[in-house]
């Protein structure tokens, strides 16, 4: 049963009507909000909660009764709804991310809030790693700033594919279309070099509610979606079932008789009973004979589902293994190149023992070499052998033993890593793998470059520049790259073509 079918069955079983408040919601979208202090982040989130969410009546009453007004308006100060979170800032917790949940009529939204000011790189990077959509907030009076650029760079680094530029405080610029268009143009120039699938600018006023959850009368010239409409249309977590199959094994389950199940969460693609699956490291294959869950066996499972796979023969895999198809295997990596966000207050020290954590494996690191630091504003790198908190480092990691690892841009989850201090256990850095090699050397010139032109003229000829086609462009490019890599060829891919104003009305 697919995840959708199982939902239908269980909803029907519980006798829940589709329109009842007891129903399951249509997916989850994780939103990261980022902006500079005073751009209006708390007011915007508060307004969204007020207009569209399932707030409790006592929470609404607090806002009404407080008498606090927003800006120079007569309207309640909706940012109050976030007060609790702000006060908690005082806790002194390192990596300061607060989670907030709300439901609209159809959807669960999760707001991941990281502070905009100090220490923002590591806070934002860890928050963004959970996000499906990022809302970049700017003040209409100042527009896109250097900070906005750095934010976009971090989003791209950790793999956020959808960004919204919320151009706030439009009331303070007379709801001027010219002002908005100029900011929108700057935003597109900025997004140009990143791999975003969707980048939309929306003019709004958080205080007055223009284009937050209703269309603004004051900005009739704007024909795009309002913020809520746009967010409700964004694809939920767990929607993609296409993609290359990956199954990192978490643990082995036994029932005391003859069941031996490999338990894990499908991290990409899908698997069916009868499929042949291969252990990346040993190259051994077996057939899936059963996909077990407590709710009954499944015929197939897709990315995001937690299952247990029973194989026809014992190929001696356990925790840390990654199952795939035999043609599209992850590399048994000995060295990887990774871009790391340095999270720890302790700077890099070549004498510290480090371990590499992947989704389900923990691998000793023989050497961790810092090659360069990345400048987020220019996206250029500068050679460096040292690295400290909030730096983004280009690194080369030599592993103590081979491990199944992907390139992050191909298959995101199995291309994420964390650096762990072997003694204290602390999480030191988190990052994405940019290259993998089995033989201990990462090829320099000998690699194959899948260029944008090559793809646009060939494999992706039928695609436009719309958001869904950009996604498809990336998917095909990655599939080609994975095939080549599995065959031992080192590959680099260019991101999809720039978002083009003229050709794409949706952007």
């Amino acid at each position, binding site marked *: 049963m697919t995840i959708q079918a199982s939902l239908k069955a269980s909803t029907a079983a519980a006798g829940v009507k589709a329109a009842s408040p007891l129903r399951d*919601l249509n997916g989850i979208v994780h939103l990261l909000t980022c902006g500079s202090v005073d751009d209006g982040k708390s007011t915007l989130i508060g307004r969204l909660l007020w207009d569209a969410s399932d707030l409790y009546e006592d929470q609404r009453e607090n806002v009404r009764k407080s008498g606090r007004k927003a800006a120079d308006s007569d309207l309640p100060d909706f940012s109050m709804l976030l007060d609790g979170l702000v006060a908690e800032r005082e*806790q002194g917790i390192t990596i300061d991310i*607060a989670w907030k949940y709300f439901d609209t009529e159809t959807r669960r939204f999760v707001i991941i809030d990281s502070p905009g000011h100090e220490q923002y790189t590591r806070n934002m990077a860890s928050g963004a790693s959970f996000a499906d959509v990022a809302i970049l907030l700017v003040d209409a009076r100042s527009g896109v700033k250097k900070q906005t650029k750095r934010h976009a760079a971090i989003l791209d680094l950790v793999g956020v594919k959808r960004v919204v530029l919320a151009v706030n405080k439009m009331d303070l610029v007379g709801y001027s279309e010219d002002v908005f268009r100029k900011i929108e143009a700057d935003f597109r120039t900025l997004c140009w070099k990143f791999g975003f699938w969707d980048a939309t600018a929306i003019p709004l006023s958080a205080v007055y509610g223009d284009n937050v959850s209703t269309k603004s009368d004051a900005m009739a010239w704007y024909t795009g979606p309002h913020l809520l409409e746009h967010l409700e249309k964004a694809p939920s977590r767990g929607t993609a079932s296409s993609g290359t199959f990956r199954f990192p094994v978490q643990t082995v389950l036994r029932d005391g008789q003859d069941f031996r199940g490999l338990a894990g969460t499908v991290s990409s693609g899908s698997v069916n009973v009868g499929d042949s699956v291969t252990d990346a490291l040993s190259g051994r294959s077996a057939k899936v004979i059963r996909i*077990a869950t407590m709710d009954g066996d499944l015929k197939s499972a897709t990315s995001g589902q937690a299952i247990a796979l029973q194989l026809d023969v014992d190929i001696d895999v356990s925790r840390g293994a990654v199952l795939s198809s035999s043609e599209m295997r992850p590399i048994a990596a000995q060295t990887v190149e990774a871009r790391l966000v340095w999270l720890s207050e302790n700077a890099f020290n070549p004498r510290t023992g480090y371990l590499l954590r992947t989704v389900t494996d923990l691998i000793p690191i023989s050497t961790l070499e810092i090659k360069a630091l990345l400048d987020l504003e220019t996206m250029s790198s500068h050679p460096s052998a040292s690295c400290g908190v909030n730096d983004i480092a280009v690194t080369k990691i030599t592993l103590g033993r081979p491990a199944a690892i992907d390139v992050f841009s191909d298959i995101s989850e199995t291309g994420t890593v964390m650096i762990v201090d072997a003694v204290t256990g602390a999480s030191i850095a988190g990052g994405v793998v940019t290259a993998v090699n089995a033989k201990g050397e990462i090829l320099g010139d000998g690699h194959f470059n899948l260029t944008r032109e090559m793809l646009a003229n060939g494999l992706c000829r039928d695609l436009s520049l719309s958001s869904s086609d950009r996604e498809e462009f990336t998917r095909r490019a990655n599939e080609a790259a994975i095939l080549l890599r599995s065959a031992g060829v080192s590959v680099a891919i260019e991101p999809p073509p720039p978002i083009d104003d003229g050709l794409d009305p949706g952007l």
Partner: protein
Amino acid sequence: MTASPSHLDLLEAESIHIFREAAAQFRKPVLMYSIGKDSTVLLHLARKAFFPQKLPFPLLHIDTTWKFRDMIAFRDKTAKDFGLDLIVHKNEDGLKQGINPIDFSPSIYTDVLKTQGLKQALDKYGFDAAFGGARRDEEASRAKERVFSFRAAGHRWDPRKQRPEMWRLLNGRLGTGESVRVFPMSNWTEKDVWRYILREKLDVVPLYLAKERPTIERNGQLLMQDDERLQPKPGEKVVMRKIRFRTLGCYPLTAAVESDASDMESIVAETINAQTSERVGRLIDHDQSGAMEKKKQEGYF
């Protein structure tokens, strides 16, 4: 593009993933079982995570001896029905000192019988990881809690020692003296818990359903007289009322609400349309401001 999966399916899968990670990474985990609705969901998720295997860790209940009788009966039946390994621990020293929720302030009572009791049990059995049903939506001080929440020696929660989390990577490597609380339901809301109980048709303690019960009104709250240890003060009297509970704990510290909701669907409807969030019914939270925060530092969670 396919249709979105249901949000409960996504939450369930995430929780199962967390359970499996923790069971694989820690030497000796335990599930903190407090019998209420969150524990009911937590246990169900744990069973799903390891199906068809038996749970690879025991359940631990810290018994203050002041739980509702229905809760204890439900706990024992659950353990029997599912063949679970249940450990019940009481802080015998605290009980000998006569600490109780009627004569002592809620903060002293909770600290001795719950917090100290929990620490004793964790130390006694040498558990290095304890699963709990806490959710980030419960209140602001929880909003930043990690899925793997680290405790220094002495079970202390040190904000500076909390580890960053990214993507689905969970780092459970312990430093010397460290242990961890694992919260598989971090991203669930109160409403999700009820929706899920309904969807999965889970049994809950009957106290969640409205029924005529003996009550005493005290300080504007309704308490249930679950046994003779709670007696009316001068001017109070015991009155039968149709009540139910939105949260369950020690009965002299848990306020009831008057309600007609006597089947699961009306409970869930009532909760989802509720005007106030659940903590209103939990008296210990009103005891001192920042109480939750303090309890966390002290290792209550």
